């Protein structure tokens, strides 16, 4: 018997139909191995956020199952694994300092104070915001707020990081920088990441696997591997390999956006 690494995330024909009859997502099957960086890419309305929120347990699938390390999301703690979610907007508490925002998940989990303080210091240093520990969110730029949000996501030492278009609202330069920082963290912390985006370049740059989705009804249409070596730097973005991957994704995205796909069963 050969040993296969346990999949971190298993989506077993999970689908979502809202009460008003809208089919947000047709049955989806997806298996993500530990340590993978997977991007969900597709036009708006393709259900990529819905899928991510189902993995997080924020949405219940209408049918089908979702497993994290072979356990239902609600029992994730039993397997000793942790999951963090980073939203599209920083979703910080505007009344609390950066430090208190980052400490929130630890406080909610009842982690002891001095231990929490050390952990907060560590992740703030990791995202380069040590100097701003006492600042209020509104004193920070959009990019810095997003870094606080990522720090808050990392402070619990997650094994799985779910990110819902986290850099979508930022300017291009800031986004590139945060993408690069995220890759570093992913390698350093050996995370499993599911990353939702509508940017082809971001998908190619970040992931080793891209899942293309289409809209009306939301479904998975194609999968791509991006088997380029890490660490990836800005130079990677001007290589031929990069543009070839981008071109393939571009064509697939065009087909997905047309809505009438051969894959539609």
């Amino acid at each position, binding site marked *: 018997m050969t040993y296969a690494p346990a999949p971190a995330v298993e989506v077993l024909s999970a689908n979502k139909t809202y009460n008003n009859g809208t089919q947000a997502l047709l049955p989806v099957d997806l298996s993500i191995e530990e340590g993978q960086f997977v991007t969900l890419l597709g036009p708006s309305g393709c259900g990529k956020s819905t899928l991510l929120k189902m993995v997080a*347990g924020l949405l219940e699938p209408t049918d089908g199952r979702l497993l994290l390390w072979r356990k239902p999301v609600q029992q994730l703690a039993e397997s000793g694994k942790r999951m963090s979610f980073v939203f599209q907007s920083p979703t910080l*508490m505007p009344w609390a300092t950066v430090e208190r925002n980052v400490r929130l998940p630890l406080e909610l989990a009842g982690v002891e104070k001095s231990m929490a303080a050390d952990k907060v210091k560590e992740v703030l240093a990791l995202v380069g915001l040590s100097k701003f520990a006492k600042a209020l*969110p509104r004193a920070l730029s959009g990019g810095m707020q997003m870094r606080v949000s990522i720090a808050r996501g990392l402070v619990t030492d997650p094994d799985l990081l779910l990110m819902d278009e986290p850099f979508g609202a930022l300017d291009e330069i800031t986004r590139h920088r945060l993408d690069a920082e995220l890759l570093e963290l992913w390698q350093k912390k050996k995370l499993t990441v599911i990353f939702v985006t509508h940017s082809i370049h971001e998908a190619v740059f970040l992931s080793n696997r891209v899942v293309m989705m289409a809209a009306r009804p939301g479904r998975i249409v194609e999968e791509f591997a991006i088997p380029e070596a890490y660490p990836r730097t800005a130079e990677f973005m001007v290589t031929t390999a990069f543009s070839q991957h981008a071109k393939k994704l571009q064509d697939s995205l065009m087909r997905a956006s047309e809505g009438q796909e051969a894959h539609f069963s």
Partner: protein
Amino acid sequence: MNAPHMPRLIQPWAQNPKVQKVIHPILVGLVLVVLWQGLVTGLNLPPYLVPSPILMMQTLFTDGAVLGMALWVTLKITLLAFGVATVLGVLISFVFVQSKSIEAALFPYAVLLQVTPIVAIAPLIIIWVKDPTLSMVICASLVALFPIISNTTLGLRSVEPDLQSYFKLNRANRWQVLWRLRIPSALPYFFGGMRISSGLSLIGAVVAEFVAGTGGTGAGLAYQILQAGFQLNIPRMFAALLLISLTGVFLFLFMSWLSHKALGGWHASEVVSD
């Protein structure tokens, strides 16, 4: 001093918005008072029609003891009513946000309370409740209650949805969500409600006094106005009126200060953009 050179005379500190915020209203007030004094003197208006500002200030001093007592009574009713309305309003809001159906069932009655003119219910309350101070506090509280209820309820409900999801993802219990998320989110709305209610409790107190018409040691400013009206003591009427207005302004300023202290720095309404 000729006009074309005026800009040079304006000192930099006078262009500071914070200074202007204080100086401009004072200038308007001074102009109005001077105009008023000038009109009264110029047109030779008798004091029983319109007293001059100077006479009004004089009355404020000569009748100081009576008016001071009256001010104390009105202020007491106002503050008690404001306190009752705040506590009661917050408690009711907490009940409202427990479930949509509770709110749906009870909210119309809160509205009913708000739209029924207090003058119309005040006589009833005064008949039912023997103690005059208590009856007046009840009247004034009823007037001040609604803004606290509606604002605090709105505030407790207006939590950013993603932040709420974040708490849910981290398995926060009901108490943690209330204490760490709902209450801080509601504070700006709550203080907005308090600011409106502080003025309304004063109005409620004055209306209640009018209806109750209590004299003697329990006489408030409204009663002084009534009495002064009967006696055609118009300067005293104006002096009492001035005290009521000043009380209202003071309450408003105090609430604004409190709101600034509580929210300063983080809420958009309290951040000065220079």
